[in-house]
């Protein structure tokens, strides 16, 4: 127990980084995922193919490879640098890799949401003369989003848990790396492990609960 108390400040700071990564990742992956799903249902075959290709490649690549490639490949070799400060740079590299990875799953969730919108809705939208973008924006996506609140919540929870893989992207200031560091010094400590697990659950459980509740409130009555 004294191990946990001794390392608590470090671990808490690390956990804060996980939260920051989660917030940045949530916002960018939702935006990117929405763009991707618009590409995948668009009337332009080229965009459909490009979107499908992206989603299938990213979804089948391990996150560890995505992050390691972002750090060692994109940043070190190809010179993609967000900041001269290494710690800040690796934060944004990881945030970018995590968002690019999560966006593929957001896209898939939204696409299955589009599949729940009844045919008649799209037909009615066309019948009153809405264009593709208009019907997508005003009819289809609002209903699709409401249908996938809970699955999107699951995607977000998985992403929060995935922030621990940041160490593969060279970002060693978050809690998994801090936990490893403390284990290097004092050996495996059950209180430290449980402390971090409880911290993660304290974030993921409310997200799950909240999105579950929101899903029930927003469910489209049909």
């Amino acid at each position, binding site marked *: 127990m004294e191990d946990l108390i001794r390392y608590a400040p470090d671990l808490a700071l690390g956990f804060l980084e996980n939260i920051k990564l989660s917030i940045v990742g949530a916002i960018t992956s939702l935006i990117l995922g929405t763009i991707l799903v618009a590409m995948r249902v668009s009337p332009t*075959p080229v965009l459909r193919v490009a979107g499908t290709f992206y989603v299938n490649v990213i979804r089948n690549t391990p996150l560890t490879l995505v992050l390691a490639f972002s750090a060692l490949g994109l940043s070190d*070799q190809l*010179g993609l640098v967000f900041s001269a400060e290494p710690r800040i740079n690796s934060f944004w590299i990881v945030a970018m890799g995590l968002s690019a990875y999560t966006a593929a799953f957001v896209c898939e969730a939204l696409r299955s949401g589009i599949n729940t*919108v009844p045919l008649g809705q799209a037909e009615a939208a066309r019948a009153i003369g809405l264009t593709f973008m208009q019907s997508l924006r005003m009819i289809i996506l609002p209903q699709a989003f409401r249908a*996938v609140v809970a*699955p999107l919540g699951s995607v977000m929870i998985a992403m929060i848990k995935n922030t621990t893989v940041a160490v593969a992207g060279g970002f060693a200031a978050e809690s998994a790396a801090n936990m490893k560091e403390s284990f290097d010094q004092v*050996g495996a400590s059950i209180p430290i492990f449980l402390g971090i697990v409880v911290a993660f659950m304290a974030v993921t459980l409310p997200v*799950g609960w909240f999105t*579950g509740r929101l899903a029930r409130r927003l469910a489209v009555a049909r």
Partner: protein
Amino acid sequence: MSTSVLFDVPGPRARTRNALLTVASVILVGAALYGIYSGFDAKGQWRAEIWQPFLEWETWEFYIFPGLLGTLRAAAVASVLALVFGAVFGLARLSDHRWIRVPAGVVVEVFRAIPLLLLIFFIFYLAPAVAGPGDYTFMAVVVGLMLYNGSVLAEVVRAGVLSVAKGQSEAAYAIGMRKNQVMRLVLLPQAVTAMMPAIVSQLVVLLKDTALGYIIAYVDLLNTGFKILPARFFGSLIPAAIVIGVIYVALNMALSFLATWLERRSRRSRKTSAAPIEPPGQPAIGAGAGTGPQGGGVAAGRGME
């Protein structure tokens, strides 16, 4: 709903517009691809000598195949263990006895909620303290994968058994079968058909997650291909990433196709009264919009790690 419902069969004006959009998007996608190409080119990533190692048999023999073998070995062992774990805990959660059901539920929910990497780290550091010094990378990866994926599979098993029509078990009880017989002879055979696609999709997740072993230096494909190989052939980092990325994608897509095929087959099947359950990674929506056995999305994100 197929995507084509979103827009009408294009008339002459729409066709022109679509053609213009196609041209614009070709230019856009082309520009993006060219940007990547020239970015690589500027850093000399298309030079023949850094791609050369991948044309030589030795590279595959000494670096890529041993790594691939490590990945497949960990995935195979962890899959079997996770299936056993999932079957045991999934059935335990369906038990009539509260003292079995509740602890099993707690175990499943807790292991699903723990970030897998933390679990692997913990096992990796705990093992030497318990069992003396040695190389525990393989064990840490396998046990971590087993506990996490086993817990997800436990939910799949539970959902599968619950998805068998109630009349089936009622009929079985009516002809005098015991609980054990009902489960073994009536429910499970039907549930397995319904569960199959979801199980295979989860195994794809498991295969992908073996790459976490890279972080604790388990000798897997990512490790030999992305750490050891570029160290041996200087400058080959990006080609190496592309080659092993292609291998991972090919492996996982092959498994995913198997899942889709199994799903189509079990949808056709008349031998089961259970509808195929949603793979845990994919959102459990469809007819019941989030009210399926896995709906709600409480406690765990699934499928992504």
